[in-house]
C-alpha cells in the first residue's frame, strides 16, 4: 500500500512538473491520501493532477503583494472582537489561563514569562494509560514545600521551630518523613541551624530546629559590618528560622506550582500551573516529544528558534481559534518568522523589530521621534527611502504592489496624428460615460 502511494506520489509530481508546476509537499500528500482508496487509470490521474496543479497555480500569491500589511491587518482587525478576560481553561476547570487579547499581545510582545505559565505534560507510551504511574510522575513534578505536608510552629520559650508532619498530607503528596529530613538537612545552613527529632512516633514524628552551636542569633546581614558589636536578636532569629523552614523544597521541579491530571482519550495527561520545560524534561517517564509549554521563551531556550517559531504560530493560532476567530495560518507564520528571523525572539514594537528598522524616518514616525532624528544626525545616517512609511512621508509612491513596478511604453512606430472630423456635440450624452 505504502509502496503504491509512493509510486502515485512520484507520478503525480512528474505530471505536475511536466506542466511546469511544482506542487508543495502538503498538496501532494493530501492528494495521494484522498485518492488512496480509488482505482484510477493513468489518464484519470493525469486529469486530477492537472486540475489540482492548475488550481494551485491560480492560487499562488502575486509578486509584490504586500503580505506584511495583510498579515498585520488580519491579526489586528479581529483583535477588536476579542475578550479581555482570563477564562478557565476549557480542559481543566481548576486552572486559569490568560486567553484572548491579552494573550495575543503577550505573544507579540515576546515576553519572557507569560502571565500564566502552563505546561501540558505527556507521559511515555508504556505508562500513559496507567493512572497511578502518571500520578507518581505528577507528584515528582509538582513542587512540594515543607508547609504542604507539615505544620510549622514556633516555641518561643525554648527558641525552637517545630515541624510536625501530617500523615494525610504526607500520603496525598507521596512524601516520607525521611524525605523531609533529607530536604531540611540539605537546604538549611548547618552553620546556623541544628535539626533534631522531636516528639511523636513513626512517620508523624516532628522535627525541631535549634540554633546551631557556635552560631549567633544576630541576623546574617549585620555580619558584614565588623565594627558594630553583634547584638543577638532571638525573636528575629526565630522568625527567620521558621521562614527558612517554610521555603524548604522537598521535591518537585522549580516553578511548577501545581500539577493536575486529566484523562484525554486513552491516556492521562498532566497539566501544570507554572512552567519549567528544561526541568520537566529531565524527569523520567515524560514523553519529551509531545510535552509542551505555553512559554515560548522556554521552548526557545531548550529547543532553539525553529521550535520557538512553531510554538509562536501554534499559541497564536490557538488563542484566535479559541475565540472563534478564523485567521489564516499564513499570517501567523509571517509574524512568527519576522519575530524569529534574527535567530532569537524579538518583540513587535519599539524595542524589537520597529526599533531596528533601517529607515530613520520610519523609526521616527513610529515612536520616540526626536531621539531617532538626533541619533541619525550624529552618525550621519542615510535613509534609502525603500520602505512604505518613508515614501509616504516624502510624498512618493510606495514600493509595494503596483508601486513596485514601472511600465515604460516605447512605441515602435511613430503614432500617426489623426485630425478628427468635427464632432457634433450631443448634449444628452455624457462625455465620459463609464460602462
Amino acid at each position, binding site marked *: 500500500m505504502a509502496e503504491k502511494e509512493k509510486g502515485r506520489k512520484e507520478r503525480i509530481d512528474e505530471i505536475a512538473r511536466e506542466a511546469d508546476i511544482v506542487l508543495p509537499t502538503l498538496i501532494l500528500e493530501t492528494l495521494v491520501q484522498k485518492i488512496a482508496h480509488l482505482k484510477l487509470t493513468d489518464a484519470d490521474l493525469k486529469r486530477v493532477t492537472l486540475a489540482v496543479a492548475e488550481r494551485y497555480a491560480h492560487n499562488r500569491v502575486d509578486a509584490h503583494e504586500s503580505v*506584511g500589511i495583510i498579515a498585520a491587518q488580519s491579526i489586528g482587525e479581529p483583535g477588536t472582537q476579542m475578550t479581555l478576560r482570563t477564562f478557565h481553561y476549557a480542559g481543566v476547570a481548576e486552572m486559569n489561563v490568560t486567553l484572548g487579547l491579552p494573550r495575543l499581545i503577550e505573544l507579540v510582545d515576546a515576553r519572557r514569562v507569560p502571565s500564566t505559565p502552563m505546561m501540558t505534560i505527556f507521559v511515555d507510551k508504556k505508562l500513559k494509560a496507567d493512572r497511578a504511574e502518571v500520578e507518581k510522575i505528577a507528584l515528582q513534578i509538582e513542587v512540594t514545600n515543607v508547609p504542604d505536608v507539615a505544620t510549622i510552629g514556633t516555641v518561643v520559650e525554648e527558641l525552637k521551630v517545630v515541624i510536625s508532619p501530617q500523615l494525610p498530607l504526607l500520603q496525598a503528596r507521596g512524601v516520607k518523613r525521611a524525605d523531609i529530613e533529607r530536604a531540611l538537612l540539605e537546604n538549611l545552613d548547618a552553620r546556623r541551624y541544628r535539626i533534631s527529632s522531636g516528639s511523636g512516633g513513626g512517620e508523624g514524628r516532628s522535627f525541631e530546629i535549634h540554633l546551631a552551636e557556635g552560631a549567633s542569633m544576630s541576623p546574617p546581614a549585620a555580619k558584614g559590618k565588623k565594627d558594630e558589636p553583634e547584638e543577638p536578636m532571638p525573636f528575629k532569629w526565630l522568625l527567620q528560622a521558621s521562614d527558612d523552614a517554610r521555603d524548604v523544597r522537598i521535591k518537585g521541579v522549580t516553578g511548577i506550582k501545581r500539577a493536575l491530571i486529566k484523562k484525554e482519550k486513552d491516556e492521562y495527561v498532566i497539566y501544570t500551573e507554572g512552567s519549567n520545560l528544561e526541568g520537566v524534561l529531565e524527569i523520567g517517564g515524560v514523553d519529551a516529544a509531545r510535552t509542551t509549554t505555553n512559554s515560548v521563551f522556554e521552548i526557545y531556550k531548550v529547543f532553539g528558534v525553529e521550535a520557538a517559531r512553531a510554538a509562536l504560530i501554534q499559541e497564536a493560532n490557538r488563542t484566535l481559534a479559541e475565540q472563534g476567530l478564523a485567521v489564516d495560518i499564513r499570517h501567523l507564520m509571517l509574524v512568527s518568522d519576522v519575530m524569529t528571523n534574527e535567530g532569537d525572539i524579538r518583540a513587535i514594537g519599539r524595542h524589537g*523589530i520597529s526599533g531596528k528598522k533601517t529607515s530613520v524616518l520610519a523609526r521616527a514616525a513610529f515612536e520616540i521621534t526626536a531621539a531617532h532624528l538626533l541619533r541619525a544626525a550624529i552618525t550621519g545616517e542615510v535613509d534609502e527611502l525603500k520602505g512604505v512609511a518613508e515614501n509616504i512621508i516624502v510624498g512618493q509612491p510606495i514600493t509595494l504592489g503596483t508601486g513596485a513596478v514601472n511600465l515604460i511604453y516605447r512605441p515602435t512606430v511613430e503614432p500617426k496624428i489623426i*485630425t*478628427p472630423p468635427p464632432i457634433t456635440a450631443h448634449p444628452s450624452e455624457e462625455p465620459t460615460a463609464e460602462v
Partner: protein
Amino acid sequence: MAQGLSKKIRSLQFAFLSPDEIRRMSAVKVITADTYDDDGYPIEMGLMDLHLGVIEPNLRCRTCGGRVNECPGHFGIIELAMPVIHVGYAKEIKRLLQVTCRACGRLLPDAPSSRGEPATDEEGSTPVRESKEERSCPHCHEIQQRIVLDKPTTFRENGHKITPKEVRARLERIPDEDVRALQLNPRFGRPEWMVLTVLPVPPVQVRPSITLDSGERSEDDLTHKLVDVLRINQRLRENRDMGAPQLVVEDLWELLQYHVTTYFDNQTSGIPPARHRSGRPLKTLAQRLKGKDGRFRSNLSGKRVNFSARTVISPDPLLSINEVGIPMEVARALTVPLEVTLHNQEVAKELVKRGPTPPPKDGGYQCGVNYLIREDGQRIKVMEKNAEACAELVQPGCIVERQLIDGDIVLFNRQPSLHRMSMMAHFVRILPHKTFRFNLCDCPPYNADFDGDEMNLHVLQSQEARAEAKVLMKVEEHILSPRYGGPIIGMLHDHITAAFLLTYQNPRFSKSEVTYLLSKLGYPIPPPAGQEKESGPYWTGKQLFSLTLPSDLNLEFRSNIWTRGDDAPGAKHDSLVVIENGILKSGTIDKKAIAYEKGAILDAIARNYGMGRARVFLDEMSRLSITAIGLKGLSTGIDDEDVPENARREIDQALQAAHAAVTKLVAQYHDGELEQMPGRSMEETLEVMVRRELGKARDLAGDIAGRHLGLENPAVILAKSGARGSMLNLTQMAGAVGQQSVRGERLLRGYYDRTLPHFARGDLGADARGFVSSSYKRGLSPTEYFFHSMGGREGLVDTAVRTSRSGYMQRRLINALEDLKVVEDGTVRNTAGTIIQYHYGEDNVDPTRSFQGEAVAMDEILGSTLGRRIMLQGGPDANVAGAPPVTEEEMDLLAEAQLEEEGEEEEGEEVSPPEEGPDFGGE
C-alpha cells in the same frame, strides 16, 4: 496638471548643520527681541523681519521678492554671545569627552566601549569595570579626569563644572580619524557642532502669528521662545563686554542655556518647562514633531486631501454592491478632471456652457462644471454668469473639472480603517436626499450600521488611480477576505430570514406574487411548478431561489437548522441542501448557504464562477430576498416569548429546585461538609458548585421554554436560520436570565460583606449574589435589575479598554510588517533585502484564494474531475461536493463497477477497504 513624477528623491542624508552653513543659509541677522512696531509693521532685524518671509498679504519678501504664497520663507540667525550645549546631543558629547584626551583630543585606547552599551569580557558575561585608576593619555601623557553629565546639560570634571566653551574646545581637538573611529562621520558633522555658537531662526511661515478678532496679535510659541533667547543673549553680551562680575555672567550664561534647551525640547527632564503667560507649557520644536498629533504622525504619515465628502449613511437594497448612492449636493461639489483633447473639445464646450448648476433634464440630475483650468494653469471658476464666456476658452490642453456622474469610480471608506476592506471602490449613482447609500451586503467589511454612522468618499483624480481602483479596489474584488479565505461580503439579517421563508418547506406562490417578485429581478416568469385546482398555477420558493444560481452549480451541504439525523432529503427540517445543475432540489437556504463568513453557495460561486458572477448573485439575492420578505412578512413581538402557563410553572419549579440546591450547598459549606476540589480552597469549591448548579437551572429553564418555541415562531426563525440572535437570547426572554457576573465571578462587591442592603451580611445564596431568576419577558425585580446593570457595565468598560489595546497592537504589527512583500522569486523580504520566508506561507498560496486556508479545494476538484461514479468507490460517505449528478447511465455503470469490485475483493489485494480517514500514525 498631472505630469507624473518629474523628480524622485532617492535618499535622505542626515547631518549636523555647521555654524558656517547656518550663517550661509541665513537671510538676516536677528538682534532685536521684538516682532512688530506700533503700526503693525515688522521690525527690521527683529523676529518677523521681512527677510525671513512674508505671511501677510500686500507685503513682499525682501529676500526673494515673492508674495505670500510664493515665498517659501528664509532662515535667519542669532549669534550667541557664548556657546551653549544642544540638549539632544548632551549624551553623545559626554561619551566623546569620556573617550578622548582632555588635553590633546586623541582617542584613549582603554576607553570604555565607544557605543552606549558596556563592554564585556571575552566570555561575554561580566561587564568590564570602568577602571577606577587614573588613566593617562598615551599620546601626551595627560592624566585623565572623570567626567559626568549633570543632566540635562552641565558637564563636570571631578566635580568642577566645565563650561560649554571648554567643551567645544575639547571637541574641536578630536582629529577626524578619531572621530571616524567613534562612529561619527566628520563629513556630515564635526563633534564641536553639537555645541551651538549660532542659532538658526526658522522662517516666519513656520511660526506664523495670528491676529485675533480684537486686532490683537498673538505670537507663536517658537517666537516667544526666540524672544527669550534674544533677550538673554543681548544681556549676556552686554554684561560680558562691560566686564561684569564672573558670577553675573555665569548666571546669564546658564539662563541662555536654559532658554536654548527649552527652545529645542520643552519636556527635558530635570528642568521646569517654559510656560506661556497663561501657565500652559510652550510647544517647542521637539513637541511639534512628537506623538500622535506631532508633525510625523499627523502631517507626514497622514495627509489631508481635497475632492472628498462625508455624510451620514443609509441602506438601499436595490443598489448593486458595487455602487454607492450620492446626494446631488455632494455630486455638485466633487469634480473629476476632464482633459480636453481634439476628440472631446466640443463635448467639453457643451459641458462648460451648462455652468455649475444645470437645470434638471428629464427630471434627473445633470452634471455641470465647476472650474476650467487653462493651458497656462490658470483656474477659472465657472459660474452661471460666465459659463458662455468660459466655454469659448475651452481648447485642447485645457482641463475641465466636471461634476460627478453616474458610473464615476470613487473610493468609499469608514473609520476605523482596520483592514483593506475598509476602503473600497464603488461606482457612483446620483440619488435624491442627503445621505450616502449602499447595499446592505457591504456592511460587514466596513463594519457599518445605520444608527448615525458617517462615511467618507474620495473622488479619484488621475487615470492611473481610476484604473487601479477598478482592477484592485472594486467591492466585488473583496468578496473573499484575505483573513480566512472565505466571503466577507454576503447576505445578512433580513436576507437570511427571507431566504429561509422562501425555501423552508418549499412554499407556493401564485402568479401575481411571482410576477411581483421577479419584476424586481427583471427575469421572465418560468414555467409553473404545478397546478392547483382552485387557484391555478403555482411556483415554489425553491424554484424562485434557483433562478439566481449559475445553471451548472452542484453543491451539497447541511444548513444552519440541521440537527443530528436530519440528513435524508425531505426530512423533518428539510436541512440537507442539495443543488444539482443550478436547481435547489432540497434543503433550506439559511446562514450556512448565503451569509457572509459562512455561506457555502456564495463561496462556491465566488471561487468557481469569478467575482463578477458572485456580485450578480449578491445583487439579485438582495433584491429577491428583500422583495420576498416584504411579500411573506415577518414580525416578532414580546408575545412571541410567551410560554404556556404549565411551562411557566415547570420553569418556576426548576428554579426553585436550584435555589434549594444552592441553599443546601451553602449550608454544607458552613458546616464544613463540602468536599474540597483538588487545588481549590473551600470558598472556590463552593463558588464552582453553585455556579454549576445555577447554570444547569438556567439551561433547564431555557429548555423548558424552548420546547414551546418551535420553528413556526418568528423569533425562533430569526435565531435558527442564523439571521439574528440566538436561542440563548430567546430563552433568556422566555425562561430565566441567569447568573450575572463581573470578572467571571458571581457578584460580590458593593456593600460590606454583601451586594445590596436588601440581603443579610455574608449571604452566599443565589439571589444575594446576582442570580436573575426572572425572564426578560416577566420583568426583573429591583435587585435583579441592579445586578443586571452591573454585568452590563462590565461589558461596556471591557469594550472601551479593548479598542485602545487592540488598536495599539495593530499599530505595532503594521509598523513591524509594513515593508514585507513577496518578490519575484517567491520569497518574502523586507526593505533591507533580508529573506523572511523562502516560500510565503510555506506553500506560496494567497490566503484570499485559498479555500478556508487550504491551498486548493481538493474535494471539490476531485468531485468535479472524477465525477460521482468514481468518488462513490469510497463508500456512501465520500465527499461528492461539486460533482455533477449521477445520470441513469452512470448508475448502471456504478452498479457494474461495484459488482466488479466485489469480485476483485474476493480475489484479494488491490482494493483496500474504504477507510473513514487516512491514518498517518502507523508508519
